[in-house]
């Protein structure tokens, strides 16, 4: 069995999760503090989660493909995103971001507002409040978001195949490899990849649950 789909999947999902993690938390904090157009901002960020992945892939092609403004701009340096490893990462970011954003936002909104007000009245800067009060106290939600978005990126299919294609050794991930194997009537290979995905997903979700259970033990209760 050629292992490149596993390596490519872990690499793209890993790279995408790094971006998603920071962008998701940043967007969540921004939206929580918005006074106007909160609902609209939330809807736009959440949209990739509810749209069919093929639609997401189609829009990525439309906005980042060779004929788009961005695509033509990049072509000046002979760079094209479509059907590259980077395209797989971008597709994974777009579909996994809403999960990170939503769980982080939920975690921020569950924080006792008085604790944040208390920090403000004590003269603590917003920056320190964010890093030392908000993040540590929202950590179980943030960990959950991290694992959910990573596992979502692991299993990403629709947007990836539209935007990054299914090039073995280059952009073929485990889920697109399953698709290719089934197309080629190789059910045994499809089954193997399916089991690998199930194993990884299960492993990370169990890890998340253990992590959350553990982090809940240290004085994390709001009084």
């Amino acid at each position: 069995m050629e292992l490149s789909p596993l390596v490519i999947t872990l690499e793209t999902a890993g790279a995408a999760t790094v971006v998603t993690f920071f962008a998701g938390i940043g967007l969540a904090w921004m939206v929580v503090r918005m006074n106007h157009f909160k609902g609209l901002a939330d809807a736009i960020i959440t949209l990739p989660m509810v749209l069919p992945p093929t639609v997401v892939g189609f829009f990525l092609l439309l906005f980042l493909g060779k004929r788009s403004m961005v695509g033509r701009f990049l072509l000046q340096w002979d760079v094209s995103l479509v059907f590259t490893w980077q395209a797989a990462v971008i597709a994974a970011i777009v579909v996994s971001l809403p999960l990170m954003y939503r769980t982080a936002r939920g975690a921020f909104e569950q924080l006792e507002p008085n604790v944040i007000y208390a920090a403000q009245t004590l003269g603590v800067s917003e920056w320190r409040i964010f890093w030392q009060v908000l993040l540590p106290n929202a950590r179980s939600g943030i960990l959950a978001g991290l694992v959910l978005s990573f596992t979502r990126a692991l299993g990403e299919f629709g947007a990836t195949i539209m935007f990054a294609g299914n090039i073995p050794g280059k952009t073929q991930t485990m889920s697109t490899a399953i698709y290719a194997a089934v197309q080629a009537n190789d059910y045994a290979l499809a089954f193997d990849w399916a089991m690998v995905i199930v194993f990884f997903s299960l492993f990370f979700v169990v890890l998340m649950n253990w992590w959350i259970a553990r982090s809940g033990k240290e004085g994390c209760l709001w009084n």
Partner: protein
Amino acid sequence: MELMVRIKKKLRNFTLDADFAVKDEVFALLGASGCGKSMTLKCIAGIETPDSGYIVLNGRVLFDSEKKINLAPQKRRVGYLFQNYALFPNMTVRENIRFAASGTDAEKKQKVQANLERFSLLDLADAYPAELSGGQQQRTAFARILASDAELLLLDEPFSALDSYLKWQLELELGKVLQSYEKTALLVSHDRGEVYRLADKVAVINQGKMEKVHEKKALFKQPESLAAALLTGCKNVSVASPLDNQHVRADDWQVDLLATNVPAKSKYVGIRAHFLKFRPGPGENTIPVDIVQVIEDTFSMLVMVRKAGSDGKTIRCELSKQEWQEWQQWQETGKPIYLHLPPEKIMVLAD
């Protein structure tokens, strides 16, 4: 240390309208829940923004709608003691205090140590808030405020969620802190006892509207409004029509009463339950009554009466159990009981 507040803010059911000045004293806002008293504190701290007006602390303008000044809470130097203390759950007692302290590392260390000692928290310095009792949490919250550079202390219903014994313990501690604090403090409460024991001056706040500021003794002795009478614990009030400048008709009770002074604009009369006395016969401000209901309270008897033969509103009288026993025997002989409302204790109230 002087705080001047004059703010208006439109809320869902009413408009908050607060206007007062405090100087080197404990000032209390007494009001029912949801009357806008916590909102007043939040506006002073900068957590909420008033629609108009100004807030000035020791000559520093914290908020001024006309000059477009609205300092961030961080810049106001106003300490806020929250109802649930709002300690940082991810930090120990020491870290909570240190987080609020400013200055160099050495200064921070000194402030943390001084406040740990001051509030007897040395043994608890490494405990997390979830491991502390209510009293210990309150002390930590105080230590944290004093380690910051707060010039004013805001106390938002500090004991509302506690049982009565713990409440008393905390109140004793708070009293000590306030005495040693020697700065201006603003207390918000619905509990008249708390306010009477802790504050120097009191203003009643009713549906967002702040009434006149009083010395606490004057307010409790002679409340001027219905809201003030009820909040200071008066159990008996009746709609009233003034008859002349000494007489008033209590419409709900269906009696005419003599009082020391009856302004023409009076709308209500009230009398505290423990000032009412039973009498064996008629006299001035003394009416025959029917006993409607007798309720045994922990240390006294509550006797609900109404004017004999009428359908007037009941009046609540409070007397010792022993006194009531004697009147019960009197009643068993079939003789009528009279109720005396001392004229000097009758409170004539405006709206």
